[in-house]
């Protein structure tokens, strides 16, 4: 199907969309936590994929990773645009409204979580989310991030090992924070 689509049979793109739409949406939403923004970025990603699928070589690449990479690039573009008026250290203030209640309940843990997060590299956070939440293999993650599979495995392992050493409270708070910042 992917090969036919890449060869110009674009009617197959609808079927590809059906397969990947939910996954790509989740991937994007976990990272922006805002419905309209996520929808906008998903649109951008799929339109870019449609326009570019004829250049995709099914013999050489993994379609899923290719699509995720497009979505990730859309996210990076989005963050770059936001940066001028977006303080990355002030993430609590931009979380989605749905979490207001739970946010209040974890407020006291913020200080500890910030301290904890400072110990974890952003790339490690991303790999954890991709591996456990998005259900990707190390190979897929490596293709999306443009890194070696061994490096991804190593980072994942280190991140988990680091988490193990922390208190459960910190872990829970970390997870809640992940929901809102990644």
């Amino acid at each position: 199907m992917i090969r036919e689509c890449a060869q110009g049979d674009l009617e197959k793109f609808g079927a590809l969309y059906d397969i990947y739409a939910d996954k790509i949406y989740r991937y994007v939403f976990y990272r922006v936590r805002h419905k309209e923004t996520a929808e906008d970025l998903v649109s951008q990603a799929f339109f870019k994929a449609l326009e570019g699928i004829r250049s995709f070589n099914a013999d050489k690449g993994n379609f899923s990773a290719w699509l995720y990479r497009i979505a990730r690039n859309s996210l990076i573009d989005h963050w770059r645009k936001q940066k001028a008026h977006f303080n990355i250290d002030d993430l609590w203030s931009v979380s989605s409204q749905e979490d207001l209640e739970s946010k209040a309940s974890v407020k006291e843990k913020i200080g500890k979580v910030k301290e904890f997060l400072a110990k974890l590299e952003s790339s490690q956070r991303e790999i954890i989310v991709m591996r456990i939440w998005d259900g990707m293999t190390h190979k897929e993650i490596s293709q999306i991030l443009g890194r070696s599979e061994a490096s991804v495995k190593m980072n994942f392992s280190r991140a988990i090992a680091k988490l193990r050493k922390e208190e459960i409270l910190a872990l829970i708070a970390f997870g809640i924070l992940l929901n809102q910042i990644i």
Partner: protein
Amino acid sequence: MKLNQEQLKKILEDLYAVDENLRHYEKELVQIICDIVELKPEVKFDENFRLQLRAQLMERAVQLAQEKSVQPAGSLLSWKFSYVLAGALALAVLVFGGGYLAQKQGIIEFPKTSLLEQSEEPFAFKKLSVSDNAFGSLKGDQAVTQAASGVGGGGGARTESGGGDGSSSIAPTYGLGGGGMTYPGVYYRYVYKGEPLELANSEIEVLRRVGFDQNISSFGSLLKSFGLGMVNMDSFSSLKVQNVNLAEDRDFGYFISANVQEGSVYISQNWLKWPQPYKLCVGESTLCVEQSRVKISDVLPDSEVIKIARDFIKAHGINLVSYGEPEITDAWRVEYEKTADKSQFYIPESSNVLFPLKVNGQFVYDEGGFKTGMNLSVDYRQKKVSGAANITSQTYQASNYPAETDSAKILKLVEQGGNYYWGYPMAERVAGSEEKIIEVGTPTRQYVLYSNYSNNQVNFLLVPSLVFPITKTPDDTNYFYQKNIVVPLARELLDQRLVPMQ
């Protein structure tokens, strides 16, 4: 969100591969991984947005495909069916027009006509928004519509499994009595077991399929040819093409029937050109017929049936842009399995392959809750497609209608068995009837095809509806083939169906 054991094991193995020492902390690692999984938020992609984006992408896909531009014409066998409606007209004119038809080595060639040049991809979904309630009453002219519903609403063949009128495939909710008598039959009670319904929109967009309004004068001087020299065609005015019938004059040829007004094409065997299995039995005993019947060993595997169907579609350039993956819809197979004396079982000559129609990313169901779409018959003996029905234009007008937002009303119809009860009073149970519980699950939003008659014409309407899957039937329920219950979201249709028919 849960992580299954296999996924968990894989993650742990990955970790141990990097650092064998972590194996000593497996319990803690499992806890950490499970905690992270538990914290994963449940995210739901907005269904309306998903469908809207899909439609936009497919529109763009069609534009991109057209940039490559397909060149029509060539032999009839390579003729793209995406041009079939326009092409059929052109060919008809050419055949009757004599002198315009060029024949080379028995293959018909026809030049590009102005009509072919005009034609766009009729199989790609196109929508033209019109004013609210533009199609009048969705019920149409009720008396005529109800009469017509029993024969499938005209036009293309019905596509659900089992063939023929779907109502016969479901045991009636009440036994039907003759001469006003009613005997206590089986009473099916439908019980909803799904999630609470979300009915946010007060309006729905109903689609009406539109065909082609082709003025015959566009053929210029060829107009006279339709009279075959016996009638002065100039004496008629404002002529429009409605139907075109063509026959393929070769072995295993086809009849092609195009209903231009309704925007549909129907293909069937040209019987004169196909072998007739029972021909040799004329004048012989019934034993000859019995021996000539299709046997279970003649039935082709599903994969082969699908391949034959796909080859036909490819050979004739039928565009699948609006169709989902093919499904075999042979209801007889279920019957066959249940039959004790299989030697007496009648096996049909062909298998049915349904290419389910998808509009705006949603499947289209018929009123009985079966998917509908393009239906191909694959002949077991000849291993060829013997017919193709419901090849339809995907150009629609779209109009907003009031939607039902009261979930109680929706569920009331579900409990009555849904949309599916032409002619049967559902509100009361006949004394002494046997009750059987049918469980119904959370619905999905799909389209349902309704055909009604209004202003002396047939309207093919796609009405947003809830399709409730039947999740459980009693073990001893034989001959209960209903898979889904359909409830229209259009308030007018829902209200009509909630009132028991007299």
